[in-house]
């Protein structure tokens, strides 16, 4: 039989000034199952808490209701007091007499009546509370960082420097990401590789970091602190330990006409190649798709010339199974390419290029060693047009969002051009200049004012070729939409930043949500921008939305702190207010019928499948099971479940039902 203790707080006069606390205590004391009912000036004070602790012992209470302020204020206080008094803390509930009653109503009988009701429903609820134990989940203190761009690098180093192990995986043969392709970076114009390369080397050499390049995530199972990840190490066709990275093979490879990805197709590479000189690891891989041996079955020149006999043509892909505690997703972004802009003639005319191609042209290590030259004829362009918002902010193109980085890099590109081609003319077509950020607007002003870049506010309708020149037709909206026509030698499109290829596939493997544009979704747009809705998986960099380097690095460090925080304990302790799917005796096993509609409503992928087998090992029933490590206790599955097979601790069906019925009936 339940024995409930009820403690009515006056909160000084905050409650007692409008609520007749004595009457509340007296009325509640007459209820069935209420063993003790009292009032006190300050329940949260030491003597108040002592009163509760002693009453628990003296009256052998099985549940406590503290009628005071909002539970959002003092629930932890009173639950702790109950625990100290020898009562399971989850057998304590609060009735909100202050915020929801005394502070919002006048002093009269109706207010006291309401106070009685507020306490009554908590008495009914607490009778049905369960003694719960906190959920403890062990933590594997190894992090996995997916993606070796600047965000992944920063995150990996920050985690590794807190003393925890990090596995970094990168799908291309080298880490470095898009940042390694950049010439110089805004707003300081320092050389991108100069600041990035040391970080790349640090990753390779860090004792806490294990780097797998040319590797991809195969599958992810488990939950926070306890992920089981399979990664596929694609065959590099070479023994990395034996290879010295001398590069002889790459010079002897007869197949040399493969568009170089790193150079954005503006240069060529052989079939066995190191992506770029500063690559980490600095070891070649064989591109089996283009290698003569894999296509025709003979060649093997690399094997012949290799001084250390490191080539392994028959090397298979390798699957590694890893135990991981937390995951940082830093898979970056891509930009829209070619066929997306038929109106601008991209892909049709060689001298229309995208922003990343311009970066390679402007880069000292690029195909032109830093000279700005037209791809078609190698001439220096005299007039160059930059088109911002190529695709971005264009709902008609399906990309309604702002790609965020283009305004800045377009200003940088124009500036770099002017620095290299002093007599040249640079035009920028733009919609708005978005240069929020430290020293950003100053940078754009510099481009306009000091480097005399000609900014035209308006959109370009078409680009076409006439007499070997590119005719750019647009309007100048600041001049009353006057048509503008510029005869250019070269056009650079600031194409929209988009989700990286394979992002959707990876999101599904990780069970994290993604938005309509396939960018990974944060758990809360404001308060949880780093977390995903899967506990233990965090986001860093442009895989969430296009970001510049400082933003990516900041977020990467933020993600690292989240991981380090998680790894600071051996066990995760969670409030046990989670959902549970019932279990019954065989042959039913559970009243759950396995429709798994709950899986589809769960924002946390906390609903798993459990198979029940008969003696012959045949699966006879599959039902839902809650992963307590993942469930956050929202209860959406509970309300959806048709057979009422799921319930929620703390807000059980029995409890909420009892509250409604008790509230509205005679007591």
């Amino acid at each position, binding site marked *: 039989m339940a024995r409930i203790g009820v403690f009515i707080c006056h909160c000084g006069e905050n409650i007692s000034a409008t609520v007749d606390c004595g009457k509340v205590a007296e009325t509640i004391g007459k209820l069935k199952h209420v063993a003790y009912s009292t009032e006190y000036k300050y329940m949260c004070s030491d003597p108040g808490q002592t009163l509760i602790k002693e009453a628990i012992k003296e009256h052998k209470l099985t549940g406590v209701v503290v009628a005071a302020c909002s539970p*959002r204020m003092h629930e932890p206080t009173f639950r702790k007091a109950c625990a100290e008094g020898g009562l399971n803390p989850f057998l304590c509930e609060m009735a909100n007499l202050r915020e929801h009653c005394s*502070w919002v109503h006048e002093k009269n009988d*109706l207010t006291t009546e309401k106070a009685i009701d507020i306490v009554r429903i908590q008495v009914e609820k607490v009778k049905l509370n369960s003694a719960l134990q906190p959920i403890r989940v062990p933590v594997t203190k190894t992090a996995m960082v997916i993606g070796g761009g600047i965000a992944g690098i920063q995150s990996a180093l920050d985690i590794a420097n807190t003393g925890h192990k990090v596995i970094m995986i990168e799908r291309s043969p080298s880490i470095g990401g898009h940042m390694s392709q950049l010439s110089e970076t805004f707003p300081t114009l320092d050389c991108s590789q100069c600041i990035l390369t040391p970080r790349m080397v640090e990753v390779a050499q860090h004792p806490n970091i294990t780097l797998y390049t040319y590797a991809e995530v195969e599958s992810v199972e488990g939950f926070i602190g306890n992920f089981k990840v399979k990664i596929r190490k694609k065959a590099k066709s070479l023994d990395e330990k034996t290879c010295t990275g001398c590069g002889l093979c790459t010079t002897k490879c007869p197949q040399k006409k493969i568009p170089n990805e790193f150079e954005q197709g503006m240069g060529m590479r052989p079939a066995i190649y190191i992506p770029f000189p500063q690559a980490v690891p600095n070891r070649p891989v064989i591109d089996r798709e283009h290698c003569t041996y894999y296509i025709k079955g003979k060649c093997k020149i690399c094997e012949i010339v290799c001084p250390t006999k490191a080539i392994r043509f028959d090397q298979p892909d390798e699957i590694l199974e890893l135990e991981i505690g937390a995951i940082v997703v830093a898979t970056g972004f891509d930009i829209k390419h070619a066929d997306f802009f038929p109106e601008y003639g991209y892909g049709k005319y060689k001298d229309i290029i995208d922003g990343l191609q311009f970066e390679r042209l402007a880069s000292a290590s690029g195909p032109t060693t830093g000279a700005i030259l037209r791809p078609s004829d190698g001439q220096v362009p005299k007039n160059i047009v930059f088109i911002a918002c190529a695709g971005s902010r264009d709902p008609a193109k399906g990309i309604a969002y702002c790609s965020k980085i283009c305004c800045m890099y377009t200003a940088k590109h124009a500036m770099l051009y002017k620095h290299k081609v002093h007599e040249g003319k640079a035009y920028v077509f733009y919609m708005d200049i978005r240069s929020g950020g430290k020293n950003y607007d100053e940078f754009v002003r510099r481009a306009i004012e000091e480097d005399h870049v000609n900014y035209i506010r308006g959109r370009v309708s078409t680009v076409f070729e006439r007499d070997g020149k590119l005719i750019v037709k647009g309007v100048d909206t600041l001049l009353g939409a006057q048509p503008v026509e510029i005869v250019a030698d070269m056009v650079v499109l600031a194409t929209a930043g988009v989700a990286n290829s394979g992002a959707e596939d990876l999101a599904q493997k990780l069970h994290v949500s993604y938005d309509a544009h396939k960018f990974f979704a944060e758990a809360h747009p404001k308060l949880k921008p780093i977390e995903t809705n899967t506990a233990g998986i965090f986001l860093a960099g442009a895989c969430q939305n296009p970001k510049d380097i400082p933003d990516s690095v900041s977020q990467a460090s933020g993600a690292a702190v989240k991981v380090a925080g998680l790894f600071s304990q051996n066990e995760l302790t969670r409030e046990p207010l989670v959902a549970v799917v019932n279990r019954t005796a065989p042959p039913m096993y559970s009243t759950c019928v396995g429709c798994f509609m709950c899986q589809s409503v769960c924002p946390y992928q906390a609903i798993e499948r459990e198979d029940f087998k008969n003696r012959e090992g045949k699966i006879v029933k599959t039902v839902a099971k809650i992963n307590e490590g993942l469930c*956050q206790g*929202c*209860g959406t599955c509970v309300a959806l479940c048709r057979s009422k097979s799921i319930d929620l601790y703390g807000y059980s069906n029995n409890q*909420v039902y009892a509250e*409604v019925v008790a509230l509205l009936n005679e007591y």
Partner: protein
Amino acid sequence: MSDFEPKVVAFVCNWCTYAGADLTGTSRIKYASNVRIIRFPCTGRIDFMLLLKAFANGADGIIVSGCHPNDCHYTSGNFHAKRRWIMFKELMDFMGIDMNRITFSWVSAAEGAKWADVVNTTVTRIRELGPYVSYKELVNKSVEEEVKNE
């Protein structure tokens, strides 16, 4: 009907509306005392059957309130709730159950004043509508059916 005090039950989520109602308190904004709040973790947790139970047990009005779209503490509970309420409302309308007696609202943790407003508007409306006689009659009629042969 001057002495009619409507019974209004509010089903609210913990993170937005409950907190919003707390803010109404800390801001000392006064509102009608007819409402009784039942706390849920999320609007996604609110079973439509509970609304029916409230009417069945004598409620004259109901408030259902949670986080604004996109603000759900659990990211999507309120979106699911929204679909549930769309269907529920349509079904109730089709069966002739008075949906003017249920207020659905989004009240954030910052909208203390809105909470007072939602309660006051609802209570005023229910006062005008009077007790939910037809539903009470339905429940009583069912009791009569049981005793018909006595």
